[in-house]
């Protein structure tokens, strides 16, 4: 064996940087309709090909084709489209509010709307999602969560339902099957598995859905979640949202080079799919497939959603510093809203006019909600939950030392 070769450190780089357009061929896409759809009771090991290819339904002519095309009524599709539009408009309005210093910080999900929203439609009441900070679509697709309430959380104002305790976007909505968002990446992924295990222990019928970003898959809890989900065949959907970036870090630094995140599932004995996350129909179909597996005691499914973080990581970030500013316009999977809209138009179930009308109505609705929410104060104007409330909920019952501290603060 020759020992002459000097070792060198390989540090993955994205194919594009500011001033140098991205070569997206690294994504390895499959044509719409090309990927097989096995029965839900397929063995995990038999999904290896599905973890490498890309499940897609909408083709370049805006038609839904292939075995994964779901049987969804036009009405359901319109609901999905509307929810995506609502989410995008909501995000844009909240970005503005952040620039106006009404909220301290914001994170949009621009370009990724289809994933949370189509999956929400594939779940049942009582199921529990363990989201990251970019699944606001799970909430915005529902009718039972008032926009005003969400905005009050974002503004940490007097009627913020979580009493100003958390950064904006760290919602908690048990009644909507939306677990409290943690600022610590990946922790929720294991908890989702635990929740699913609990449902199985109790002989319940509810399933869990865990969410994680490509970057956060490098955290230990990702592996832990896969291990526990596999070992106990937990009824859980393990969603990896691969939007190509983790703040300034390209997904290859999380381990995406030469392999897929879905592939990790197969290695752990988990049925896994790699799916076009900007294709509403594909997201719905894959989510449904995974949910059915979970409900039939067939165990977990890992789904890698290929998408693109079209906006900045957060309002503290400026992506033009580390990637081409127009990168998204070249992303080959397009815009989920435009794609579903075109499909609806193509099947004669939608029109540009209707689209514009809905857009206007949503803008008005969101604008009005914001006005209403602002009546209850903002972090900046100091109309926030009381300092006394800061000492509550640390324990179920307030211990002596916290009473003393509250007293010391004089509140």
């Amino acid at each position, binding site marked *: 064996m020759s020992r002459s070769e000097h070792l060198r450190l390989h540090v993955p780089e994205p194919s594009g940087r500011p001033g140098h357009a991205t070569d997206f061929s690294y994504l390895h896409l499959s044509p719409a309709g090309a990927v097989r759809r096995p029965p839900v009771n397929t063995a995990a090991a038999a999904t290896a090909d599905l973890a490498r290819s890309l499940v897609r339904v909408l083709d370049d002519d805006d038609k839904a084709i292939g075995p994964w095309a779901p049987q969804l009524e036009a009405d359901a599709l319109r609901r999905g489209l509307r929810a995506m539009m609502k989410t995008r408009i909501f995000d844009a309005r909240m970005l503005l509010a952040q620039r106006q210093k009404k909220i301290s910080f914001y994170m949009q999900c621009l370009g990724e709307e289809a994933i949370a929203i189509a999956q929400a439609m594939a779940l049942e009441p009582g199921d*529990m999602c*363990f989201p990251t900070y970019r699944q606001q679509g799970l909430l915005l697709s529902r009718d039972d969560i008032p926009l005003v309430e969400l905005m009050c959380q974002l503004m940490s104002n007097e009627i913020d*339902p*979580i*009493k100003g*305790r*958390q950064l904006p976007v*760290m919602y*908690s*909505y*048990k009644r909507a099957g939306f*677990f*409290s968002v*943690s*600022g*610590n990446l990946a*922790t929720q992924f*294991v*908890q*989702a*598995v*635990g*929740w*699913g*295990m*609990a*449902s*199985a*222990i*109790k002989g319940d019928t509810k399933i*869990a859905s865990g969410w994680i970003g490509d970057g956060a898959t490098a955290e*230990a*809890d990702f592996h*832990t*979640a896969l*291990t*526990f989900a596999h*070992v106990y065949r937990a009824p859980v959907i393990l969603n990896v949202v691969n939007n190509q970036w983790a703040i300034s870090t390209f997904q290859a630094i999380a381990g995406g080079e030469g392999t897929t995140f879905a592939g990790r599932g197969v290695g752990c004995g988990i049925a896994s799919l790699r799916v076009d996350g900007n294709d509403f129909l594909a997201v719905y179909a894959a989510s449904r497939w995974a949910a059915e597996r979970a409900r039939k005691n067939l165990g977990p499914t890992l789904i890698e959603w290929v998408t693109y973080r079209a906006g900045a990581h957060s309002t503290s970030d400026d992506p033009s510093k580390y990637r081409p500013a127009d990168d998204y316009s070249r992303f080959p999977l397009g815009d989920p809203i435009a794609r579903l809209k075109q499909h609806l138009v193509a099947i004669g179930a939608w029109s540009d006019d209707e689209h514009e009308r809905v857009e206007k109505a949503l803008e008005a609705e969101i604008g009005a909600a914001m006005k209403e929410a602002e009546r209850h104060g903002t972090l900046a104007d100091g109309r926030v939950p009381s300092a006394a409330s800061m000492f509550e*909920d*640390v*324990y*179920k019952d307030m*211990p*002596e*030392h916290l009473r003393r501290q509250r007293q010391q603060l004089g509140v």
Partner: protein
Amino acid sequence: MSHASDALRKTPMTMIEALRSAMDVMLARDDNVIVYGQDVGYFGGVFRCTEGLQAKYGNSRVFDAPISEGGIVGTAVGMGAYGLRPVVELQFADYMYPAYDQIVSEAARLRYRSVGDFTAPLTIRMPCGGGIYGGQTHSQSPEALFTHVAGLRTVMPSNPYDAKGLLIASIENDDPVIFLEPKRLYNGPFDGHHDKPLVPWSKHPMGEVPEGYYTVPLESAAVYRAGAQVTVLAYGTMVFVSEAAALESSIDAEIIDLRSLWPLDLDTIVASVKKTGRCVVVHEATRTGGFGGELAALVQEHCFYHLETPIERVTGWDTPYPHAQEWAYFPGPARVAAALRRAMEA
């Protein structure tokens, strides 16, 4: 101590049996209680604390877990959010570090950040402490790493009676509880004289344990030994070491067994120090940043004008726990007695 019924039949139990009995009682009373951890299922745990429980309650309520402390606690948080009351075992407290993020960032904060929407009513059991030639990775006492964390309860029993009553109270408690079990006490009280033969729990009054349900309330210390001259604050194994030191030095020490480290029964402590005017804090953990520092700070805050001498701390040294020099590391009766004498000087 609050007994459900004084008529409950008492049996001699080791601490292991008492802990097992607590889990048995709670598994029987509450369907939402489940028990899991490494080797706790078929085998019954490396310290045998869960022996027989899987056979009795089935393997979806008592089961083995992968070697992933983070996964054990992380799934337990999810189960807690669902509505279960998981009681998990970490094989040694020394191996809690991979679970630390889930404990601190998640279990401890879940209620707060969700305004009670979601809670994590877990009990996390872990054997702690030295005295068994376990070396640096089977001997640690990491209680200070929990008492610093808002939202956690930290408990450490010193005897079978308290172990069972506190474990039941912990399982029933709606906050996450860190339940530290001084493994050197599993089979008998231990006063630090490692060359003397083991005294079994059957020879100790606190080894008499009711068979059924009862609780020892959290946040309540016990005056293990009443005394007039100096207050000793101790917990776990150090209760017995302190007792030996008091006897051997003929100093009439009042020994307080904290039992609940945090939240703390400060009243009992303050009352005692105000009476004696002197205080010695004893723990096995590394000195710097140990829970003894907090106790000393609290005592001087609340009893400053009653203190005659500086509060003494007797602790493990600021080194990893060595294997061969175990008894030079362990804060034994001679070191505690010396501190008692120093506290009595001046």
